[in-house]
């Protein structure tokens, strides 16, 4: 052993006893090491006379520390937590990977990815399962195995898009470029599942050719590869006279029936589909097709072109139409249904707006500009209307409206409401496409000032229109009733909750629902950092080996009471009890640590020895170590009562403390010293102070 110096006295003469496994300083007698670990290999005889070496294999993946080492998890031993994470990750990867039948190499790679992810802190805020699945999928993609994200989500019962999100993020963060999925990869796998017997290979090859053909025909961009595979396999199966229905295929391939049919239809439209089976196997057509969605788009544009032509013809006839329009308008006016309530108000508003629009005399700039826009853009409008007509006809029930809209912007149809919506959308479109915007109407300069002051710029805001948005009193009543009825359940819940809270408050058991659960439990009250550490250590009952006195000394005269020592000290204490402000701390401690009594009692004897050593070494008389609970062990009955009585008093003072504690402690110190020499019995002391002993050094 290397010669070390003793911590307490500085002596270099250290006696190492192998038998007892301890290292002791011969000058002061302090134990430097207990349970020295020897680096020898020991052999043990097992059953049948077989001798085996004692020990465990430690895996290369990081230290696997057994939890009984005694070191707490509170200190910055982050490595332990990290190792645990990695270990659990590895386990999960193995589990999931074996379900997917991945080989060991893939699993190792996945674990490497996982390690990278953990080191980049990307596991924070994500479920471990998702991260593991994403790592596995990354491996599948880089290795090119025929596993789909869908398989993983099936296993985990998680939405595939959530997994996809995690996967994309990890791939981006780790800068791993996963090669694009090739549908050809999936063919053998699906073919196998479809059970073709001996001809599986042939069918697969045919399906492969089909898929390649599809790729050239631009059917595969933007589509799920599994859908394409399904279609190809279906056709290939039929080509080889296997009867596989659509249902069989979709159960294997996991797409919807509609999708499969659509793929088949698209394929049908390609020229390749016209070939016979033999021709297909021999010949490969040169030409390529456009993607099916592109052709659909083309179809649309064609329709639009037709419409353009129509509109041109329409322009010619416009004059005629306008007089029809006027007639129709008058008819509609007569037959318009009476609108009630808010709608009436709204309808009334519409007309003045219209008239404003029509007439040139208007105060509001906004309306003027609208009018100007409308006038200037009539040609645009007709075209837009037609487009809208197209959409609406394709859509729903607005056919009649569409007809009316063709007449012109000023047409007021039956339901005033329906009219305004399309009007607004038209105007909306205009604001983007027309050369002048509403922007012109608003002064940019005052806005700057106002935004600073936060005052609302009322320019261009039509108050009348705003009024529409606010209901009058009677309407409010009606709405209130309706709302109450509608939300009766919710209101009921709220009322019950309030009552519950009130009752609890009365009973005094009301606890504010804590949103965050602090694992640490009660807050440790302490004035100084040192005190806090000691209290915490004491609570955790960490180590008997820490010399808390020295710890305390380090922090100078802080008010701390040393937590763990109480066990040691208390046992032997009769001579050393202190009174002082420490009592208060004691009390508190006592309450908390009542459960620990038994342990302490058991340790008392051991502690006693230790205590002696400690006493001899330390010269400091100062501090108060809290002795906690201890006492109950030695003096149960008497103390408890006394303690109970006095416990209340000090309570108020808990840590208010050290400051106030200091003066008393000064006095106490003197008392302590005196006591120490007197060797007052514990009972006596208890009688005096009604508290448990404290020790003094």
């Amino acid at each position, binding site marked *: 052993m290397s010669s070390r110096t003793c911590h307490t006295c500085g002596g270099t003469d250290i006696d190492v006893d192998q038998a007892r496994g301890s290292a002791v300083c011969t000058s002061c007698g302090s134990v430097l090491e207990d349970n020295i670990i020897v680096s020898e290999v020991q052999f043990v005889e097992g059953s049948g006379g077989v001798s085996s070496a004692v020990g465990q294999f430690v895996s290369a993946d990081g230290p696997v520390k057994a939890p009984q080492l005694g070191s707490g998890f509170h200190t910055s031993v982050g490595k332990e937590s990290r190792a645990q994470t990695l270990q659990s990750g590895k386990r999960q990867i193995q589990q999931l990977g074996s379900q997917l039948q991945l080989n060991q190499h893939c699993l190792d790679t996945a674990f490497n990815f996982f390690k990278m992810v953990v080191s980049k802190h990307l596991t924070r805020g994500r479920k471990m399962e998702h991260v593991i699945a994403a790592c596995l999928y990354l491996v599948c993609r880089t290795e090119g195995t025929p596993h789909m*994200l*869908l398989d993983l989500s099936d296993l985990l019962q998680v939405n*595939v898009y959530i997994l*996809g999100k995690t*996967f*994309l993020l990890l791939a*981006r963060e780790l*800068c791993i470029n996963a090669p*694009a*999925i090739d549908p050809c990869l999936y063919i053998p796998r699906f073919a196998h599942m479809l059970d073709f017997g001996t001809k599986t290979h042939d069918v697969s090859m045919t399906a492969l050719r089909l898929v390649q053909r599809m790729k050239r025909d*631009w059917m*595969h*961009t*933007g*589509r*799920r590869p*599994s859908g394409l595979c399904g279609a190809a396999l279906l056709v290939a199966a039929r080509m080889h006279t296997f009867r596989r229905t659509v249902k069989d295929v979709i159960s294997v391939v996991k797409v919807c029936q509609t999708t499969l049919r659509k793929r088949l239809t698209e394929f049908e*439209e390609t020229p390749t589909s016209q070939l016979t089976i033999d021709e297909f196997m021999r010949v490969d057509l040169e*030409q*390529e*097709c*456009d*993607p099916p*969605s*592109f*052709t659909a*788009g*083309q*179809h649309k544009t*064609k329709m639009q072109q037709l419409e353009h032509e129509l509109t041109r013809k329409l322009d010619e006839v416009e004059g005629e139409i306008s007089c029809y329009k006027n007639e129709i308008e008058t008819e509609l006016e007569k037959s318009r249904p009476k609108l009630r309530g*808010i709608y009436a108000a709204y309808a009334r508003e519409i007309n003045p707006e219209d008239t404003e629009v029509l007439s040139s005399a208007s105060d509001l700039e906004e309306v003027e500009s609208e009018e100007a826009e409308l006038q200037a853009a009539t040609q645009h409008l007709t075209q837009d209307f037609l487009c809208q007509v197209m959409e609406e006809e394709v859509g729903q029930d607005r056919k009649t409206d569409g007809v009316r809209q063709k007449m012109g912007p000023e047409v007021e149809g039956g339901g005033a409401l329906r009219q305004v*919506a399309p009007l*607004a*959308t038209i105007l*909306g*479109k205009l*604001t*983007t496409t027309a050369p002048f*915007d*509403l922007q012109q109407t608003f002064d940019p300069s005052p806005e700057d000032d*106002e*935004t600073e*002051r*936060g*005052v*609302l*710029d009322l320019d*261009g*805001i039509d*108050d009348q*229109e*705003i*009024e*529409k*948005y*606010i*209901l009058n009193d009677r309407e*409010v009543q009606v709405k209130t009733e309706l*709302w109450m009825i509608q939300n009766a359940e*919710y209101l009921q819940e709220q009322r019950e909750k309030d009552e519950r809270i009130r009752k609890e408050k009365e009973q005094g058991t009301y606890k504010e629902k804590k949103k965050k659960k602090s694992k640490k439990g009660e807050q440790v009250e302490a004035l100084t950092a040192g005190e806090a550490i000691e209290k915490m250590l004491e609570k955790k009952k960490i180590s008997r080996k820490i010399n808390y006195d020295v710890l305390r000394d380090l922090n100078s005269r802080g008010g701390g009471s040393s937590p763990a020592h109480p066990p040691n000290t208390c046992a032997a204490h009769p001579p050393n009890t202190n009174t002082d402000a420490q009592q208060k701390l004691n009390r508190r401690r006592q309450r908390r640590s009542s459960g620990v009594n038994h342990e302490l009692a058991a340790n008392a004897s051991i502690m006693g020895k230790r205590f002696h050593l400690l006493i001899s070494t330390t010269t400091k008389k100062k501090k108060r170590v809290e002795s906690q609970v201890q006492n109950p062990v030695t003096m149960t009955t008497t103390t408890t009562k006394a303690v109970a009585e006095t416990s209340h008093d000090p309570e108020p003072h808990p840590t208010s403390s050290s400051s106030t504690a200091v003066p008393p402690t000064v006095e106490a110190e003197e008392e302590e010293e005196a006591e120490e020499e007197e060797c007052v019995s514990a009972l006596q002391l208890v009688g005096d102070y009604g508290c448990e002993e404290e020790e003094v050094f």
Partner: protein
Amino acid sequence: MDSSNDDALDIIITNVVATFRTRCHLNLRTIALEGTNVIYKPEVGKVLMKLRKPKITASIWSSGKIICTGATSEDDAKVGARRLARCLQKLGFKVRFSAFKVVNVLAVCSMPFSIHLVDFTKNNRPIASYEPELHPAATYRIKHLKATIQVFSTGSLTVTGPNVQNVATAVEQVYPLLFECRKPLREKRKVN
């Protein structure tokens, strides 16, 4: 080869999202009961209010924060926001219009050619990503502009960005890349 043809390419803004603050606490119940076109969601704690002109839907929280969606231009969004604030003012709250900010702009654009997404992704590796299992479009993220472009194989684009200028710049940036991977058009097939 044409590089950016802004005039030839129609960038249509479909949605503008903006937020602002009223700097005062709002009583959602009052708004819900006294306003037209409002939907109250007490579980979530907000009120949805829809305006007709400009066509805007606003989510109003009791803290006074308001999000406006559905506008078709930045100015429209501002007008709508102001109108909304005016409406709240009339309801009796001491509303002030502050911290107006356009948060997101969504636009669509259409290329006259279709695009080979796999090639496009291969050429622009880390910036572009394409997962056919998840989404039919390839996503192209421009970091310094904070814009995201979704490219579909038909040639249509969806662009989102913090303001209209960024959106236009993004389209200009991505155009040459798309042009490289375009699919040469064959003769038009007859539509069955």
